[in-house]
């Protein structure tokens, strides 16, 4: 599970049998009391008086695999919608692709705030979410502890061997292993954590230099530290390459650079295999990047089925740009064309058949849902 706290918004994504909605009222109180956001208007309910009025609320989830285990308002989508309706007005609930065969339930609330929702958003704004089930077992194995330890040992041994060779060649240096933090990455997509691989006392060795006779010890924290092992897995399976530093940040990402994130959650066990990928890194205007990201992520997990939800501001989306054609603007037609190209590439993910496509039109935003099955 993960939480991202920006100055203006909070994203909370929790799995298992967590009771996410039960934290919402406290969240609004915190925003008012500790962050100074304006409280809601006059209301006889004391609790509401000290609760901040949100600008927008968005709640969604995929169908649960084990709904009977859920607690509180999460026992059913109906209960969740009622819970939110009791707190907010002007909400809309959707099921995609439809109520007959729902895969993802979505509730979007645009709270009247005296300003136009779409105009208030600065710059392109989009969220891409890929939800995957029936993961290919061999690919899912990468996310098991024993596999991660083996991968870490292999990587460590290789690094140690390289260091030993350098020492034998007379270069003599203290090796360091650089790792990037996996799972959630805040701000820049490059977050480096450096920790020593070797530990030697200066009395035994020459100021920490590695010599050919050194006995290499495998640090225990690298075997048991979930974060370090997660880093190894992230690099080994290709997650760290979803946004390669050779290509990102591009011009468009730079505009949103401080506020970009991506998060991955994985449940690899075969009886409940599942993985999700979510990011707000904007797709490139060349019309390639979003589909490239989807193909890259899907190739890591090779799911039997997956859905892609793209939630983007109308200034950004293909559907939104269609509206600008009414003005016959040359630039609008060009950008609409690029957006259509981007959209059409997402219709053809190698190895998969796009089964459903649904578009929801919200104030200032479009939500495009696509569902794929392996051919």
């Amino acid at each position, binding site marked *: 599970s993960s939480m*991202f706290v920006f100055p203006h918004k909070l994203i909370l994504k929790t799995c298992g049998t967590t009771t996410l909605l039960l934290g919402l009222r406290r969240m609004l109180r915190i925003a008012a009391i500790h962050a100074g956001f304006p409280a809601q208007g006059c209301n006889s309910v004391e609790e509401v008086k000290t609760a901040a009025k949100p600008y927008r609320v968005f709640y969604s989830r995929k169908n649960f695999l084990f709904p009977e285990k859920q607690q509180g308002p999460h026992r059913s989508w109906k209960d969740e919608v009622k819970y939110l309706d009791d707190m907010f007005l002007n909400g809309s609930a959707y099921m995609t692709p439809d109520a007959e065969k729902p895969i993802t339930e979505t509730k979007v609330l645009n709270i009247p705030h005296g300003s136009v929702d779409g105009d208030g958003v600065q710059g392109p704004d989009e969220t891409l979410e890929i939800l995957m089930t029936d993961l290919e077992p061999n690919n899912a194995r990468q996310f098991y502890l024993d596999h991660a330890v083996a991968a870490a040992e292999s990587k460590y041994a290789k690094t140690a061997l390289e260091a030993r060779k350098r020492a034998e060649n007379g270069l003599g240096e203290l090796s360091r292993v650089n790792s990037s933090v996996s799972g959630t990455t805040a701000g820049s997509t490059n977050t480096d954590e450096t920790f020593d691989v070797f530990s030697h006392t200066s009395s035994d060795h020459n100021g920490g230099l590695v010599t050919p006779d050194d006995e290499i010890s495998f640090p225990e924290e690298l075997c048991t530290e979930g974060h370090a092992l997660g880093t190894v897995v992230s690099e080994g399976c290709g997650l760290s390459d979803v946004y390669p530093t050779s290509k990102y940040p591009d011009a468009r990402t730079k505009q949103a650079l401080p506020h970009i994130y991506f998060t991955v959650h994985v449940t690899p066990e075969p009886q409940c295999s599942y993985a999700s990928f979510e990011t707000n890194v904007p797709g490139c205007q060349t019309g390639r990047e979003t589909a490239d990201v989807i193909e890259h992520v899907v190739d890591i997990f090779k799911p039997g089925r997956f859905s892609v939800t793209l939630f983007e501001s109308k200034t950004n989306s293909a559907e939104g740009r269609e509206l600008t054609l009414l003005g016959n603007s040359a630039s609008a037609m060009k950008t609409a064309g690029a957006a259509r190209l981007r959209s059409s590439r997402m219709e053809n993910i190698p190895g998969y058949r796009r089964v459903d496509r649904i578009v929801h039109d919200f104030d200032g935003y479009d939500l495009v849902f696509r569902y794929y099955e392996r051919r």
Partner: protein
Amino acid sequence: TFSPSEGTPQLTINRDATIDLDSSNAFEGPEKLLEVWFAPSPKDLPIGAKENGLKSVSAETWTGMLDLVNCKVLSTIESEHVDAYLLSE
């Protein structure tokens, strides 16, 4: 907490929370996703809001909210523009 230089995100790991972590039984992977906006952008915080908005709230305060959600904080990464929390039920 590890912070090698100014401006570099700070990582804090809560090792006590990870000792008995066990997901050997079937686990509900599909998440509930909640996104709550209080302003259209970080630059458009309303009058009266603290300069850093929600980022000015302490981790301890968020922990109280997360207790209601039944989540523990495994680690945090604090940066200038966003704080990221890795959580577990």
